């Protein structure tokens, strides 16, 4: 070992190079190190050896110092090499030796494994390489000792204070219900709806952790909430000032058990959502009696709430009449439009707002694509009415109408007593059919809608005394009928569209042909003209020839000569 490690005595060390090469661990920052040369780092750090001013300091002497110290260390890398051990073996100024020693130690060329206590790595890699004295560098720390950031070390910086609950610094989990972002799955609201309500009940102050009863202040920056008490005490939390907070007074009952919504309030909510979209501040303003949070959660609870959100922009002007019918109609329209939304999403991921705005209001005018019809049934919504609407749009309008009829019939069979009542319903179904017919005839959406609305209203007006279950069933049937009508309309629309397109194509073809014909005419004209010219030329040549002949005859050239000329 000793032999081969001394670089001065190894010009002929070839036979033992493989066996003597060992793996030493040095920091990757010192990978420049090589036995047979002096690196720039060494030159700059220990400049005195390289400026050539002194006899006792030369590159050669430095290299000897360095090599000796490193080799000395590597005799036993587990042991920390001491300066005092080294200097007795080296001739030279101790201060200078000390400097070299410190530099080597700083680079990790000595005492690296000894200080970290990790020396097992050496020798295990085997030394089959013939790189001579090059030192292999191990990149970075081994996996076992790599330092990993503590799991929540970044959290206090990036998240509002409420998220650092692990520190026990106050804010409780109740706050987090605020920043829960709802995933775009309808099932979420079904599964977590109750939980959300529960969480909402225990809304806590972000600063003191107390329960918020009636009024609280909300930061506009990050929805951080504090109770009124904390606000008056100017406990705003980090990075927030008084201007960021707006007072939110939740109604009394919302603190008690979620929120009890009256029908009027729900209606108001739906209307304002359609008008304002997901601008919840405006929505909450127009609902008045409920807070923003209440509005959001109520809308999520509603079976079609999220679809409403998605289609709110488009359904702007179709607000009409009373409760139930209104709901049904919204379901209808939103079902179709949401279908469309889905397909457009499937077709390309970027569905832009402008496109949606173009579809504003009457979704009937845009023709449904084929893919809309095969949209999977299961994942659209949990709402029964939605499903119905979807099915209705999938099948043929005639089938839908028949199904609606059959459904009403079955209802009547099942329960004999309201048969008379449902005569009205049958009337209604008829009216739907008639509406279909009229729609087929006129292709006019408005008329159809009006008539179906009318029939619905009629039906409802006559059914005031009917028990709720029947009304629900009637409503289902109504939905089926209306959906069928709509589906028919859409189909017609598409037919017209196709017709129009075909007509356009034919038109274009005809135009093309006409153009060609005209071109040929031109060509013909050109040919004729040319033909005439050629004829003229022919004539003139003929006359010229006659002229020439006549002149030859007159000048008296013998015919013989003429022949001879021809012959030669």
């Amino acid at each position, binding site marked *: 070992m000793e032999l081969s490690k001394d670089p001065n005595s190894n010009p002929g060390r070839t036979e033992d190079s493989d066996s003597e090469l060992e793996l030493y661990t040095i920091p990757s920052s010192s990978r420049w190190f090589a036995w047979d040369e002096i690196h720039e780092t060494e030159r700059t750090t220990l400049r005195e050896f390289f400026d050539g001013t002194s*006899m006792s300091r030369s590159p050669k002497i430095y290299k000897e110092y360095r090599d000796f110290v490193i080799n000395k260390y590597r005799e036993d890398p587990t042991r920390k090499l001491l300066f005092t051990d080294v200097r007795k*073996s080296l001739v030279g100024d101790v*201060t200078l030796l000390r400097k070299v020693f410190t530099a080597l130690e700083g680079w990790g060329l000595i005492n690296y494994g000894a200080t970290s206590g990790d020396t097992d790595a050496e020798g295990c890699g085997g030394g089959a390489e013939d790189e001579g004295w090059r030192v292999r560098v191990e990149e970075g720390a081994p996996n076992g000792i790599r330092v990993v950031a503590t799991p929540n070390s970044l959290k206090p910086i990036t998240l509002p204070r409420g998220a650092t609950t692990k520190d026990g610094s106050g804010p409780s989990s109740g706050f987090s219900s605020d920043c829960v972002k709802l995933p775009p799955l309808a099932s979420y609201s079904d599964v977590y709806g109750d939980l959300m309500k529960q969480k909402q009940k225990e809304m806590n102050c972000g600063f003191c952790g107390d329960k918020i009863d009636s009024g609280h202040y909300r930061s506009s920056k990050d929805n951080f909430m504090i109770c009124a008490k904390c606000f008056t005490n100017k406990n705003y939390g980090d990075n927030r000032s008084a201007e960021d907070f707006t007072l939110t007074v939740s109604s009394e009952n919302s603190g008690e058990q979620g929120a009890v919504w009256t029908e009027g309030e729900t209606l108001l909510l739906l209307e304002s959502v359609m008008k304002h979209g997901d601008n919840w501040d405006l929505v909450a303003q127009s609902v008045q009696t409920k807070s923003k949070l209440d509005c959001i959660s109520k809308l999520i609870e509603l079976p079609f709430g999220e679809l409403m959100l998605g289609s709110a922009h488009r359904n702007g002007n179709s607000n009409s009449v009373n409760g139930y019918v209104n709901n049904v109609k919204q379901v209808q329209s939103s079902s179709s439009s949401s279908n469309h939304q889905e397909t457009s999403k499937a077709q390309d991921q970027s569905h832009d707002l402008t496109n949606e705005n173009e579809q504003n209001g009457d979704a009937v005018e845009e023709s449904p694509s084929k893919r809309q019809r095969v949209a999977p049934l299961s994942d659209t919504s949990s709402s029964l009415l939605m499903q119905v609407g979807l099915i209705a749009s999938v099948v043929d309008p005639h089938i839908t109408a028949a199904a609606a009829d059959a459904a009403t019939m079955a209802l009547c069979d099942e329960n004999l007593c309201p048969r008379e009542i449902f005569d009205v319903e049958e009337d209604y179904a008829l009216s739907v059919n008639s509406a279909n017919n009229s729609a087929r005839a006129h292709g006019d959406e408005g008329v159809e809608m009006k008539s179906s609305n009318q029939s619905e209203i009629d039906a409802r007006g006559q059914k005031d005394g009917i028990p709720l279950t029947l009304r629900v069933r009637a409503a289902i049937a109504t939905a089926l009928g209306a959906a069928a009508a709509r589906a028919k309309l859409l189909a017609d629309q598409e037919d017209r569209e196709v017709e129009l397109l075909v007509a356009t194509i034919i038109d274009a073809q005809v135009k093309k042909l006409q153009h060609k014909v005209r071109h040929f005419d031109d060509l013909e004209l050109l040919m004729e003209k040319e033909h005439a010219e050629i004829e003229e030329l022919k004539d003139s040549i003929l006359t010229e020839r006659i002229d020439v002949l006549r002149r030859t005859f007159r000048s008296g050239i013998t015919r013989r000569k003429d022949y001879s000329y021809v012959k030669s």
Partner: protein
Amino acid sequence: MKTPASGFYRNPVKFRMPTSENLVPIRLDIEIDGQRYKDAFTWNPTDPDSEVVLFAKRTVKDLKLPPAFVTQIAQSIQSQLADFRSYEGQDMYAGEKIIPIKLDLRVNHTLVKDQFLWDLNNFESDPEEFARIFCKDMAIEDPEVGPAIAFAIREQLYEIAIQSVVSARESRLSKKGRRGAEYAPVSKGGAVAVDLVKLFGPKSSVVRKRKEWDVYEPIVDLLSNEEVDALEAKEERNFR
């Protein structure tokens, strides 16, 4: 403390302690009325002299010595400082000069013997730092050993510096106007500078031969109480 540029090997240096900090070793050995006060420390010659008296007073107070010591201490320090200052401004030595430093000292129970080379032109050298590392490496726990080693080094350096001044003056007188060989040993007596050509020449290796390792190896001994007593008695005899 300004550090001379790299070209200084050719030119004589003005007298100073050949270390990074220009600290003068001061040794006190004062006996008054049967009370003996021995001490050794370093002093910064650029400090105002008023500090000397203050230091003396405080030392006397701390050690509960008779007040008569104050003037003695102050005088001793002053005279040693004056000695040092008398050399200031004079040329020291020209050319490279590496000298062996020998340590042979006893501090309480610790006996230290060592030998190493010291470059008088290396103004980055720091005896205190060297002593600290020495103690650490040799696992010496007595806190008084480190300063004692540093002081011993300084004393020897001081001695050599004074000799160099004298010899430089002599050589200037003898070979006036002629620049001598830079690498030739300048010293005539006392400080025996090592032969640079022999040690650092192209033929020699700076790695010592194994048989020389023992000479330059530091030896630290811990003495028993009896040995210490015997040594102190011996020193006492020599002093008388």
